[in-house]
């Protein structure tokens, strides 16, 4: 038995990040059938890429890869935010509307001469504000996450309409244009931003106290509470993160379309949750990865891209998307 008093911190005696080597961890993961599900999205993505490439050789052309990666950036950012919420067994239905609101706030500030940086900060703050509101109502008000975020879904999109007076605002800004079109090799800036966010999120989730508390809150909030974790604060924080990332997504969106619109963006909501779930994260909380949802987002983007490249008719596209999504989830069943 250890001494009752344990050191609560240790100076960086070991500097190697993350313990066992990657190889060990991968082989460990492969041996554990419960974790096969985590890789559904990756397997699905690989299969999809092979199929599309064999049917249409432009699929893996560098222009197309670049286009896909850029197109996936917003969804990746939102899915990362959604992952934090879902890891605590919550759900953020307002994520897409919050993005809309943040985009409109950005547009409002921008055309009122706030300057780019200030407008960006304001938009991100607006997103974070909605997140904190969600989190506070859920954790302090003890209202179900589903209802609260459904309420803010409606309220945020209403507010966006009011602020924008229902009209899109064209944003002409050189830096934003570069953000949406600039690349490093085949990686567009917006994709790189999304990737950087994902890496930070991964470190936060697995290498900080906060991340452990998020998983503990999702796994068993009573137990987490009993061991002295302030689960209310954790809940508030994950919604704040989700709102904040919706704000970041809004900037990417505005840069991408060159306008701040009060459009509903509903497809982003379902897609963000779908990416997370395809990425092997349980809706019941407690277990999560960041890589999974990122791959899930890439899968969903590649799917629509590939179907369009193949010239699948607009009526058959939803059918094909539905079938492929189920198959991607089904793939793992045969791996066990």
């Amino acid at each position, binding site marked *: *038995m250890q001494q009752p008093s*344990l050191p609560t911190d240790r100076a960086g005696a070991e500097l190697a990040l*993350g313990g066992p080597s990657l190889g060990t961890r991968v082989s460990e993961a492969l041996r554990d059938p419960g974790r096969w599900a985590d890789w559904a999205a990756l397997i699905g993505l690989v299969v999809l890429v092979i199929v599309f490439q064999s049917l249409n050789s432009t699929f893996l052309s560098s222009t197309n890869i670049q286009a896909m990666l850029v197109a996936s950036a917003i969804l990746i950012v939102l899915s990362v935010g959604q992952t934090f919420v879902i890891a605590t067994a919550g759900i953020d239905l307002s994520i897409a509307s919050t993005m809309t609101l943040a985009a409109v706030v950005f547009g409002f500030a921008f055309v009122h001469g706030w300057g780019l940086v200030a407008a960006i900060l304001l938009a991100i703050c607006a997103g974070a504000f909605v997140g904190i509101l969600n989190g506070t109502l859920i954790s302090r008000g003890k209202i179900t996450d589903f209802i609260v975020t459904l309420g803010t879904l409606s309220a945020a999109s209403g507010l966006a309409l009011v602020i924008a007076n229902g009209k899109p605002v064209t944003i002409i800004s050189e830096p934003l244009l570069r953000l949406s079109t600039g690349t490093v090799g085949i990686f567009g800036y917006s994709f790189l931003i999304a990737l950087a966010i994902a890496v930070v999120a991964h470190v936060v989730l697995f290498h900080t*106290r906060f991340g*452990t508390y998020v998983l503990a809150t999702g796994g068993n909030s*009573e137990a987490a509470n009993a061991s*002295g974790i*302030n689960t209310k604060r954790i809940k508030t924080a994950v919604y704040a993160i989700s709102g904040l990332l919706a704000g970041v997504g809004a900037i990417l969106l505005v840069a991408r379309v060159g306008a701040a619109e009060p459009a509903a963006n509903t497809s982003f909501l379902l897609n963000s949750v779908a990416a997370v779930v395809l990425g092997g994260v349980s809706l019941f909380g407690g277990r999560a990865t960041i890589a999974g949802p990122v791959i899930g987002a890439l899968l969903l983007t590649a799917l629509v891209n590939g179907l369009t490249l193949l010239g699948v008719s607009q009526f058959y596209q939803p059918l094909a998307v539905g079938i492929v999504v189920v198959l991607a989830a089904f793939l793992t069943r045969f791996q066990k």
Partner: protein
Amino acid sequence: MSNATAETAPLMFQAPSDALLRVEDVALSFGQVRALKTVTMHARRGEVTAIVGDNGAGKSTLVRCISGVHRPDSGVIEFDGAPVNFRSPEDAREEGIETVHQNLALVEDLTVWQNLFLNRELMRGFGPVKFLDRRAMKREAATMVSSLAVNVPPVASRVRRLSGGQRQAVSICRAAGFTSKLIIMDEPTAALGVQETARVEELIQRLRDEGHAIILISHNFDQVLRLSDAVWVMRAGRCVAGRRTAEIDGDEIVGLVTGARPGDLPAEKLQGDLT
């Protein structure tokens, strides 16, 4: 409060000045269920204080009041000389009360080492930035668990996979690993095998010898007689008797628990039962 009455009056009315924990007239109802009617008891530093009683007598509820999970409807809890009013388990833990709950408050989806170090993670820093020291936690967790368990589960496996006894061992390791003034264990050995039970009993004795106060709930009266310094008997939401363990035997405990012996509560305290 005077020691003069110690011989005549039973333990429960003594409330010695050096008591670490003092619970007085604590009551708690869940809707119609009066789980605790009025409970008065105390526990001292450097002693094992046992609580016994039938199923549903209110032992775990009492423990949950002390450790901040529930807030009593009425009554006073004094800890370390001052009245306390914990609003959350966090408050209680900060004051130095550590609990092994009966329902084993572990997070099933986290690994053994994550559970052991939950809320007291080891960190390593690069300057002001601090990250989890996963490797060190795993290593220490392995030592901690192997000191209690016989079939040591791998510390990287999720708690969901463990056997009943392995979980209990993890819970106890957790509680014992903190530096706390009072350690409450609600039926810690219920799911344990003989060897593991022996190790836990050793652990309890060691913790007592180090000066911690320990509250032990157990249905195993042999264990209670073996380990404890004082015994409280609960019946239907009340502490009906309190004794120094040296002055009691198994038969008397059984009698008090079952109600064959009436206990020491004065009649006016029992009034509430009519409602």
